[in-house]
């Protein structure tokens, strides 16, 4: 039977690890060197888009 204490123990331990894993993943994705160019391209691309779609 799952009682309150079990749930609390689960969320306190699992919650900590999944949040840390998630933070590490996000930071790695953001600063991955090969992503740099893609990001800068994306930031620039909105400034000079024309006003018609490609499709």
């Amino acid at each position: 039977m799952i009682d309150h204490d079990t749930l609390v123990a689960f969320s306190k331990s699992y919650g900590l690890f999944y949040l840390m894993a998630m933070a590490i993943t996000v930071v790695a994705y953001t600063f991955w060197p090969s992503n740099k160019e893609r990001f800068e391209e994306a930031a620039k691309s909105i400034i000079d888009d024309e006003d018609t779609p490609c499709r």
Partner: protein
Amino acid sequence: MISELTRGERRLALAVLTAVATFGLALAIAGRGDILAVHGGLIMASAVILMFFVIAGFYAPEPGEERLAQYYDTPTKAGVVLAMIWGVIGMGVGDWVAWLLVYPDMTFDAAWASFGRLRPVHTSGVIFGFGGNALIATSFHVLQRTSRARLPDQFSPWFVLVGYNLFCLIAASGYLLGITQSKEYAEPEWYADLWLVVVWVVYFSIYLRTLMRRQEPHIYVANWYYMAFILVVAILHIVNNLAVPISFGSAKSYSAFSGVQDAMTQWWYGHNAVAFFLTAGFLGMMYYYLPKRAGRPVFSYRMSILGFWGITFMYMWAGSHHLHYTALPQWVQTLGMTFSIMLIVPSWMAAANALLTLNGAWHKVRDDATLRFMMLAAVFYGLSTFEGSFMSIRAVNSLSHYTDWTVGHVHAGALGWVALITFGSIYAVVPWVWKRPAMYSNKLVEVHFWLSLAGTLVYVFAMWNSGIIQGLMWRTYNEGGTLAYSFIDSLVAMRPYYIARAIGGLLFVIGAVVGLYNVWMTIREASAERADAPDAPVVPALARSLQAGE
């Protein structure tokens, strides 16, 4: 409008409207003898009126293939106008209830005019009517531009826009009639909630279908924020509104939750409504229109990504700061408080990113009131998130909770951040989609800007003062160890601040009216010009030069 739909889409529109009208009729019949019948009738009448429109345009010539070489902006146009109209109504009712707090007798002995019924008309009117329509309108615009793809079809954006406004109408009229499930920012009853789920699923599907056809390799960050808004609002809405109606013929339902679980679910919903409705979507607006208007790419794209994941994951845990000193277990309160304090980091990332983007464009900020709206919004965003993190500390909250300080914080966020970024984005998008060089009057944009700033400052300072005085009066003891002030004493002390707040609010409403007028006149100019245009078809500029990276 109808002439832009293909024949098949017109048929689909009629089929959907028939289904909605039938649903309304069923509600009206099942709910006869209950107040539900009014809403059944309202739904049916709305669907029938719209059917007339579709039938009137049914045999108009079909749109040609050349439409596919253009973005589909008519739903955006309609959404902008609806947002401005809801804005004037919602803010107007807000100022009305502000005066009601100054003159509590102003209810004409009518139930609908009581504070309890008018207040949700204000909150839903501004959050869902004004904010929601602005989010839908701008999201369609941004989505198409950043994906370089047209919306997937002509019918579904209209379904979302019209269906959403039907929801808003049911909500607002229901409050006046006394229909509410008394969950803050989630007051509409079960049938309205179900309808919103349908609308929202279609909304998300438009996003996915357009993104699947995108031409850009990377999904621009504004879309991430808009998608987080759509997806998370769906989750929040479904969970918090789980309820069982008394019967299919009754407007009343009972929540699936009770006691402290109910409170926690409600504030998990409530705070994430702040996070995903009032923040994420508007950050999407900011990350597109601000760099665009300033003519400079966002200062740090990486920071916008880090901020995105920070905001989406940390906000989820912050809701319990609304329940300090309640039956909620202490550790859950502390958890909420901790995450709220950490939230300052991704929040200030976004605010700083916006302001640093403007570095080097300050002369534009000085000259262009539209950009200044967005700049000031970023400042207020930084301010209200700092304040929020501060107020979530348990000891601070013991002073601020139940007082006007919370109201001051809300409006630093809602007026200073949400409304200002919206007005800035609307002033940027209106000339763009109506193909005008500028708004009808830049002077009026300037007037609107100063009215908004003055109104917000008066409002917020009044409530900060009032809230802290209130909080202190409630915790001052005399030598005998009993409270020094009665509740009535604190009410009397509030009165001057309530007058100031109502005046500040009035300035803000006048600004919104000026804005609506300006938008309206810009549209009129645009249609006058189209009438004068030479009698030749417009050739879409299909030939465009290829650019590096394509």
